[in-house]
């Protein structure tokens, strides 16, 4: 159990560092598109290796191929948008947005699979909505303060 908790913390550290390294790469003036291309290239290489090692074959049906292609494009566009946004705004807010986006498939599966909207989920969605309003309004106020500071 101790190892499981350590693994859990290692996961948090890896994901947290991922956002920080993205910000560092932006500060080092890495080309955003090229960076995303290389992230996906390395990950494709690793996953292909794992597929051949564990499954030994590569058989996918038409609907699964369609799903993988469509959602893979979503992932690339999402990470490209994240990497572009940290050049314009705060990494803290962009990373939170990456994680808040988990609410979208939760909403979709409520609609598609008729999953129950529990009290906990309702509270989570309400909090997410209030958080988004606070973040967008906060960003507007920061921009206004910065603009007035530059004008003065």
């Amino acid at each position: 159990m101790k190892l499981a908790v350590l693994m859990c913390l290692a996961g948090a550290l890896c994901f947290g560092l991922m956002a920080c390294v993205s910000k560092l790469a932006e500060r080092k003036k890495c080309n955003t598109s090229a960076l995303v291309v290389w992230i996906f290239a390395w990950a494709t290489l690793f996953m292909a290796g794992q597929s051949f090692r564990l499954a030994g074959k590569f058989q996918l049906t038409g609907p699964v191929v369609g799903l993988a292609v469509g959602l893979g494009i979503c992932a690339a566009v999402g990470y490209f948008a994240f990497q572009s946004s940290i050049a314009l705004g705060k990494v803290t807010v962009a990373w939170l947005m990456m994680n808040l986006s988990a609410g979208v498939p939760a909403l979709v599966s409520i609609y598609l699979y008729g999953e129950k909207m529990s009290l906990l989920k309702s509270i989570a969605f309400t909090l997410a909505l209030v958080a988004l309003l606070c973040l967008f309004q906060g960003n507007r106020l920061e921009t206004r303060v910065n603009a007035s500071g530059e004008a003065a």
Partner: protein
Amino acid sequence: MWLLLMLVILLTNGMSSFGLKVLPAWGLPSSLKYPYLTLWYAAGLVCIALPLLLRGWKSGWKEVGWGALLAGLSMGGQLAMANALQSGLPGNVVFPVTIGGSILIVAVAGRLFFAEKLHPLSWTGVFLGGLSVVLLSVS
């Protein structure tokens, strides 16, 4: 522009992992996960690389190295989370700790290392958003 990027992140990033929920719902074996993820990453790669290649793009070594580091961290995080779940820790502990923990790490690093100053309203948003993500992963 920033607002538009935030909306794109919100709509695309979350949906991207939806497939891993759909595969079991279609009654497909878990061994299909790796070929599925290979194609998933390859599709993303082509989507961003194609426009670049058409413009005659040549990559620098800088992006190769940073890209490898980021890919390693992403897969390291996924593997650590999978191992924690396999070791018997319930999902309602693993997901809030890893996701909530990463948000906290980024918030602290943003303040300490990147000198990011947030408006109090934005900090409230970060706190409520973090809480919402934790609740979503528990429910």
